[in-house]
């Protein structure tokens, strides 16, 4: 606790005063004309584009008119990101030092403004194995040496569209509310910031958006039925997922309210999930309060309450944050894909892994009889081209099964050119009763295309 407290004090250190001349008003907009910049970045061309140049200039072709009345102007691009990292971390089974790679490649076939087909692969990792090399492994099931995660498995393949746009002849004068959105296929679902659902699921979703019932500014309602690929690492695999996701803007607050039901597979238990969040700002403070509940058929229920508070500091874009959580019994995410962290990942960067190699979170992100906090500051440097996050975090055991643990984590990221990022992260971890502190660290390069 003491260590975390000292770090917290460092984060709260007074800000450097803004330098300006005596009598000058530093906030007044300038009277001096500002000439147009001559250094505007050019459009980065995707590795593959077919049809019109993606967001490029030039005439646009008229496209093809379908019998439904829709006009399609097909255009395809290939895009994604590659990550390469040297990582050293203490996992639950022991230390791993490694070089790991990840490649996320997507194809987007845009048919109209609202209809498209998305296909995605992760060619260099599969089932937790990232192509690369393990230099040192204390994990019994992980051999040192080359790692091969090469694959061509489809991670994403879905079509999304809008009935009203697909069949405009159903309402030629546009007076009928035909604009029901839908998405069909293998798709990534991410609700309640990934704490309720964070998975790639085979299914179909139907949605109504831009609804404006009285008392609201906007309402979105989404219904989803998933039939495959539903992962529940904490409670066994599931056969079906039924969900209602909603989001409502009111004058001051945005509410997200979601309900899920996953039907267990091969005798596994069914599970209900519920999430409610309220996000607002008041007098300079940002507040996101979140309540998540899970209940299984066998009556084991758990919950997680999370509050994220932050403030943008005067004279800068820097953000100071303080997040607290409390989990009782065991809260289980309704559908959680591999390598996506546990329910506490939003608490702080100390609770989240890297999504690369075996580099896990400094503090466990499982939500089982625990409470804790993360306090940190995000510095934006060189405009916004560089950033540093310093964070102190603690996880306290609420039962004898667990132990208290503390971590301090720093993460630095910088943009290089128009496509590259260099990132480094280090954590120092102390677990109650341990003889010494542990250190995790990684250095990573990213390429966007």
């Amino acid at each position: 606790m003491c260590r975390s407290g000292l770090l917290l004090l460092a984060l709260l250190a007074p800000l450097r005063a803004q330098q300006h001349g005596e009598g000058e008003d530093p906030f007044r907009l300038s009277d001096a004309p500002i000439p147009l910049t001559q250094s505007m970045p050019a459009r980065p061309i995707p590795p593959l584009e077919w049809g019109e140049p993606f967001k490029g200039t030039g005439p646009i072709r008229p496209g093809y008119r379908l019998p439904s009345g829709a006009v399609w102007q097909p255009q395809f691009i290939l895009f994604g990101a590659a990550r390469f990292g040297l990582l050293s971390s203490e996992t639950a089974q022991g230390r791993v030092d490694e070089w790991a790679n990840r490649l996320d490649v997507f194809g987007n076939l845009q048919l109209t403004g609202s209809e498209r087909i998305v296909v995605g692969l992760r060619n260099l990792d599969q089932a937790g194995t990232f192509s690369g090399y393990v230099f040192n492994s204390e994990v019994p099931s992980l051999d040192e040496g080359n790692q091969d995660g090469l694959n061509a498995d489809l991670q994403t393949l879905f079509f999304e569209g809008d009935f009203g746009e697909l069949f405009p002849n159903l309402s030629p004068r546009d007076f009928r509310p035909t604009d029901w959105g839908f998405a069909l296929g293998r798709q990534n679902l991410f609700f309640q910031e990934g704490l309720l659902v964070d998975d790639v699921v085979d299914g179909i979703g139907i949605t109504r958006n831009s609804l404006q019932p009285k008392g609201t500014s906007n309402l979105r309602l989404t219904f989803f039925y998933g039939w495959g690929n539903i992962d529940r690492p904490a409670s066994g695999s599931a056969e079906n997922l039924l969900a209602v996701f909603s989001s409502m803007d009111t004058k001051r607050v945005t509410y997200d309210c979601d309900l899920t039901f996953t039907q267990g597979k091969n005798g596994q238990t069914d599970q209900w999930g519920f999430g409610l969040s309220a996000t607002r700002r008041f007098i300079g403070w940002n507040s996101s309060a979140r309540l998540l509940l899970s209940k299984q058929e066998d009556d084991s229920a758990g919950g997680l309450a999370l509050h994220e508070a932050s403030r943008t500091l005067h004279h800068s874009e820097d953000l100071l944050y303080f997040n607290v959580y409390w989990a009782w019994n065991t809260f289980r995410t309704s559908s959680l894909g591999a390598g996506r962290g546990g329910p506490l990942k939003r608490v702080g960067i100390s609770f989240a892994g890297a999504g690369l190699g075996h580099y896990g979170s400094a503090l466990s992100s499982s939500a089982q009889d625990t409470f804790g906090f993360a306090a940190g500051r995000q510095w934006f440097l060189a405009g916004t081209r560089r950033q540093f996050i310093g964070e102190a975090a603690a996880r306290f055991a609420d039962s004898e099964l667990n132990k208290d643990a503390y971590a301090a984590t720093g993460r630095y990221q910088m943009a290089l050119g128009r496509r590259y990022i260099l990132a480094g992260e280090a954590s120092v971890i102390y677990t109650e009763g341990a003889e010494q502190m542990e250190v995790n660290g990684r250095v990573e390069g990213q390429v966007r295309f």
Partner: protein
Amino acid sequence: MWIGKEIEPVEASLKSHLSAISWLRLIFFCAMCLTLVGQNESETKSAEAEHAALFTEQRYPSANTCATCHPDHFREWSVSPHAYAQLSPVFNAMQGTIVKLTNGTNGDFCIRCHTPVGMNMGEPVFMSNLDRHPTSREGVTCITCHRVSDAYGKLSGRLAISQGDLFEPVVGPSGNQELERVIESGEYYVNTDPNRAGRAIHKDAKPFFQLTTSGFCATCHDVNLINGFRLEEAFSEFKTSPAAKNETSCQDCHMGVAPGEAKGYAQGPAALVGGVPTQTRKRTNHMFIGPDYSVIHPALFPHNTRATEMATLREWLTFDDAAGWGSESFEAKVAPGTEFPERWKTADDRFEARDVINQNKALLAEANQARLKVLQAGYKLGEVQVKKASQAGLSFSVEVANGTTGHGVPTGFDAERLVFLRVKVYSPDDQLIFISGDLDPNGDVRDEHSLYVHGGALPQDPYLFTLQSKFITRMERGGEREQILALNVSPDPLPFLRPSTNSTILTGRPGAVRKHKQGIAPGDARFPEYEVKKRDMRGSGTYRIQVELIAGMIPVNLISAIQGVGFDYGLSPRQIADRVVAGHLTIASREVTFDVP
């Protein structure tokens, strides 16, 4: 040990060695990626060269050409937000900022709507309007709608515009009948053959009834960003509105006789061919008035064919309107030897220029009146309800209602539309004891984006009632915060826009950014509440509450956020801010007096 709990167990079948073929595949893939991602489009397109070539092509006729036979349509359009779309220095800087911050990945997304002709011509996405092709500067010009022949739906502005000179067919709501009569009657001396002399006219007017539908407006007024972010939802809101249920279209309210209200259409000729009117028919208003207004030199906007013939834009920028050049009072006092720019050396030229400017100012004033009407149709200020009035304090509420049935208010680019209440309370001795909705020295309301509030020099206005939607970004940690621009640099420092890899139809937002809409739904009202504390009360007597509902085009803080790329026409941030504030309109006001015992 509680470290790394979320890591998936490593599969027992881990391979300890990569085959040579696998390594080759990996190396090839990485090499391909690194090679391909290195490509960038040339930044050095010569605008001048492009222009020289394009001037001769006549692929996209100018509105000035259309003005010959459609002078009334031209006049309305010339002062419209459509005509201002590309000329706006705020737009130019804003889209330039977004292109810069997204490392070029935003491409022509924003500007494609604002100057479809310029983008069709392949002009650079960021440059001075002074150097753009004249038709490119016309923004949403005549052919943007009248040379589109398919219903593209929610396309975010990427319309296919048919190319061709004036003689090529145009599209219209009612087809060819009247045009055929004009061509065949011999009365109008028109000519459809580019190789013959005579009054030029297009040879065909193809019927395109979608021009009269709300779906046509949706091609630009329902905007989904590259990453699926729902930036503007005017059409989507309309689809579920009472107006749609009653079969009232966008055009019924925004092209009729009363701005913002469905009160029918005017009747009149579609054209004056050689001064002879064509047959009377439904005559739509092309002013499309909205919340925007011009902050640039009055000779540059509204578009004016006389101004175009008289001088270049650069020359016009040297004409000192504020000093009164060309006015009788100014010219009478000009001392011998006074220096003027070459183009405005003679008093005759200055008088003529003044005449053009006066004509434009009259049109701007007309548009301003129409703007007030459309805003008054959209926003209704109700009564002030005093709930408590004693020496222990005051509390009262004010009703603000949506006057439309077609969409929320504000709509469209609602994240940059400033509509707010200014509330003042005066004590019996006429001292101001409470204020909300006042402006900081830059002209901003005191929200968290005011430079003075952000810098800690002024307190935030706790009672500020504004209907402006907010861009919200999810921070790496610490929840979400408001930002002036919808760009998130918190998860990583390299915003790089690509299509979302999730379904954004289902969520309406990409992962890390969204919009918090704060507007009023159709048929709904808000009742913001205010309190005057005991310490501010000034004893018993008659107190006065003044309420104004005010609309501005944009918040001034946006000017600060986008100034890094510079402003066109040699304008300073201060000048733009002053003109933005000068354009604030009081939509409605209320005043109540009451006694405090």
